[in-house]
C-alpha cells in the first residue's frame, strides 16, 4: 500500500483535457512496485518539421539584415573566417580595418536591412555594370544562409581590371518575416476607435501569468508600448488597452485567463472604449490551426 502511495506521488498523473481529444488516457498497469504507464496516443503530424526554415515559407521573408567584409583575395576571406570563428577580433573591428567596401566599412560591415524585393531587383540587374549596393552576389549568398551563419562568395571587382574579382565574407544577422495575421472586420454597432483618443490618454494595463519567459516577453512588450506612447497603469479599470500575457501549460492555467478577461469583456460590452489583447500559449487556436478535431470549448 505504501509503495503504491509513494509511486502515485512520484508519477503525478495529469488527466489533461488536452489529451482527451485524442481519446487517450494514462493507465496504471501492474501492481506493487511494477507500475507501468502506457503511452497515450499523441496526435502526430505527417513529416513533423524541426527547423524553422522548413516551416516558414520563403515567401514570408520580408527582409534580411546582413553584414560583410570585402577583401581582394580568397585567402584573405578564409583568414577572415578563421579570425571571426576563433573570436580573435570582433566583426566590426575587422571590417573597419580591412574591408574594401567604403559604404559599410565605417559601420563595421553592417549593410542593414534589405528587403526581398530589393534582392530580386538587384539579381535582375546586369552584372559588372550594376552599381547597386550591396552586390547581388552578396545578397543571394546571405539569403540562403541560416541566421548567424557565414559564407564566402566572390564577385567581379567593381573597380580595377575587368577580370579580377573581389571576395566577400558574409554573415546573415537577422530575418524579418511578413506579418500576415488573420483579420476579421468588426461589426461597428457600438465600436469606437482608439485612434480618435488623444495621444496623451493612451493607457495600458498588462497582466502577466506564467513563467519567467513570459515575464521577459512582457518587459519587451512594455518597451514597445512605451515607444508607441502608451502609459502604464496598475489600475485595470482606468486602462483603455488591456493585455493578457497568458500561459496554458496546465488546464487550470488556461482557464485562469477566462476569469481575468471576463470583467473587461463586460466593460467593453457596456460601451467603454477598451481594447483587449490576449497573447501567449493558448492551445485552442493552435488546435484549430492544426485542423484536428478538437472538443468544443
Amino acid at each position, binding site marked *: 500500500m505504501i509503495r503504491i502511495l509513494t509511486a502515485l506521488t512520484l508519477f503525478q498523473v495529469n488527466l489533461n483535457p488536452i489529451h482527451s481529444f485524442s481519446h487517450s488516457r494514462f493507465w496504471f498497469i501492474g501492481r506493487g512496485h511494477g507500475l507501468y504507464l502506457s503511452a497515450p496516443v499523441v496526435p502526430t503530424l505527417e513529416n513533423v518539421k524541426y527547423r*524553422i526554415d522548413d516551416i516558414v515559407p520563403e515567401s514570408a521573408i520580408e527582409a534580411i539584415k546582413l553584414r560583410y567584409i570585402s577583401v581582394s583575395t580568397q585567402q584573405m576571406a578564409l583568414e577572415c573566417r578563421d579570425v571571426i570563428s576563433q573570436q580573435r577580433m570582433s566583426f566590426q573591428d575587422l571590417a573597419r580595418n580591412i574591408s574594401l567596401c567604403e559604404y559599410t566599412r565605417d559601420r563595421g560591415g553592417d549593410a542593414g536591412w534589405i528587403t526581398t524585393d530589393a534582392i530580386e531587383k538587384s539579381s535582375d540587374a546586369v552584372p559588372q555594370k550594376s552599381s547597386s549596393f550591396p552586390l547581388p552576389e552578396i545578397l543571394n549568398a546571405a539569403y540562403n544562409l541560416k541566421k548567424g551563419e557565414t559564407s564566402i562568395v566572390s564577385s567581379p571587382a567593381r573597380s580595377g581590371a575587368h577580370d579580377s574579382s573581389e571576395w566577400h565574407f558574409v554573415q546573415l544577422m537577422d530575418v524579418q518575416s511578413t506579418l500576415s495575421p488573420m483579420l476579421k472586420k468588426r461589426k461597428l454597432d457600438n465600436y469606437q*476607435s482608439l485612434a480618435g483618443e488623444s495621444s496623451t490618454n493612451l493607457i495600458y494595463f498588462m497582466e502577466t501569468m506564467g513563467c519567467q519567459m513570459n515575464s521577459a516577453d512582457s518587459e519587451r512588450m512594455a518597451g514597445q508600448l512605451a515607444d508607441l506612447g502608451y502609459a502604464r497603469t496598475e489600475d485595470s479599470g482606468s486602462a483603455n488597452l488591456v493585455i493578457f500575457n497568458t500561459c496554458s501549460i496546465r488546464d487550470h492555467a488556461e482557464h485562469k485567463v477566462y476569469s481575468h478577461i471576463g470583467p473587461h469583456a463586460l466593460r467593453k460590452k457596456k460601451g467603454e472604449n477598451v481594447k483587449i489583447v*490576449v497573447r501567449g500559449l493558448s492551445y485552442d*487556436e493552435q488546435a484549430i490551426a492544426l485542423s484536428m478535431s478538437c472538443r468544443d470549448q
Partner: protein
Amino acid sequence: MLRRFPEVDVVMGPQYANRIGDLLESALNGNQVVATDPSYQSEDEMPAIRASDVSAWVNVIYGCNERCTYCVVPFTRGVEQSRTLDAIVGEVQQLVSHGYREVTLLGQNIDSWGR
C-alpha cells in the same frame, strides 16, 4: 477563445511579442486580429523596460523541438530558434553598461541552444 469572448481584439502568439505595434494598429482600424502562425523571431528594436535595475532576463532560445507527451509548448511556441551569439553578447554587454548585476538566460529548452 474568440467564440467564448468575441470582445477580444487581438489574439497573438508569443512569437509576435516585438510586433505588437503593428498588430495594435490593425486592431485600431476596426479589425479583430488573430496572429498565431509560426514565424521567424527577429531581434527587438526597442529595449525592454525591465522590472528590476539589478537583475535582468535575456532570452537565448525560443521554442522547443522535443515532443514530450504532456506538454503543449512545442505546439504553441513552435520549433527551436536560437538567437545569434552576437545578439546575445551585445545585449548582455549593454546590460552590464547600464549597471545590471545579474543576468538570467532564459529558454524553453535552454540546453539545446545553437543546435
